[in-house]
């Protein structure tokens, strides 16, 4: 499998593109992957972009699975700010993920995130998530490692992303969903 620290060294055909959303002019508030097939072992989401939160701050993403709005998501984060390392945790109604850049112009800073969801179609255990995300603004920035848990034994069939601080994903933002075979 291809995960963050374990490179895919070539079993041809094991990593497949499932769906991609690229945000058009005017932005969009929600990005959704639905009807995700159960034919893979793991999922990977690769995201690149920014929100309309403005030039005063970075932003993150709130991820929800299968439309679940209950307090079934927990996460631990390890973050670097460029001057200090810190750790935080959350237990809430969405998975809070490190993410994107700030500003609303193409000439500003864009963040990236890689989110791995392990054994997503399994119906016997809770789902484990890990992510690496960051955005650098030439004098400011964040990089974060996240581990998360969705406390449900349901197979994952849909995933939704909304900005954490802003209200819309900016134009050119892209979320790409991939499936990894076992």
């Amino acid at each position, binding site marked *: 499998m*291809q995960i*963050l*620290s374990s*490179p*895919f*060294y*070539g079993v*041809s*055909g*094991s*990593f*497949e*593109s*499932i*769906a*991609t959303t690229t945000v058009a002019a005017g932005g969009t508030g929600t990005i959704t992957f639905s009807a995700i097939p159960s034919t893979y072992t793991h999922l990977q989401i*690769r995201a*690149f972009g920014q929100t309309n939160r403005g030039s005063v701050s970075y932003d993150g993403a709130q991820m929800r699975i299968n439309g679940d709005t209950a307090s079934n998501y927990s996460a631990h984060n*390890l*973050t*670097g*700010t*460029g*001057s*200090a*390392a810190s750790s935080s945790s959350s237990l809430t109604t969405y998975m809070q993920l490190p993410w994107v*850049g700030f500003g609303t112009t*193409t*000439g*500003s*800073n*864009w*963040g*990236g*995130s*890689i989110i791995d969801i392990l054994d997503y179609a399994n119906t016997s255990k809770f789902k484990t998530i890990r992510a*690496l*995300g*960051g*955005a*650098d*603004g*030439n*004098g*400011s*920035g*964040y*990089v*974060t*490692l996240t581990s998360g848990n969705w406390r449900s034994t349901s197979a994952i069939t849909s995933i939704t992303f909304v900005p954490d601080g802003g209200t819309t994903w900016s134009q*050119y933002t*892209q979320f*790409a969903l*991939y*499936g990894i075979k076992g």
Partner: protein
Amino acid sequence: MPATYEPIATTTLGSTQNQVDFNTISSAYTDLVLVFNGGVTSTADIWLRMNSDTGSNYSRTRLTGDGSTAASTRNSAASSIFVSVGTVGTNANMIIHVFNYANATTYKTTLTRFNSSAYTAASTGIWRSTSAITSLTLKAEAADTFTSGSTFTLYGIKAA
């Protein structure tokens, strides 16, 4: 579903070498992944450059752990992205993700995971250019060199 994550090019060094270039990179993919496994002589850092740009157009935010302390540092207005940590040594690996490298609209963002016998690290970098990336260079700092046997593999990932 279309299969992706394709190897584009691989270099295995038969002798020490100061830098490795991947040129004429196809624009057919969405993201690039550059995997390094090897070492660097002396105490050099490893630098990443895009399109041979040596201007002060790079910056990086890094998170490191050395077995006893977690820390974070930054480089700004640099002439490359410093993707390694401390003394690289002879047994290190690194995975560099370059997002949306072929677009000619936005700045380019990287995420890197680096591991050596002394450090583990995660970092994000940006190249402040809207040019499409057509070449990547990994360079040992100054006149230092990558060790013989070091491997460098570039993959392309294409979104549907």
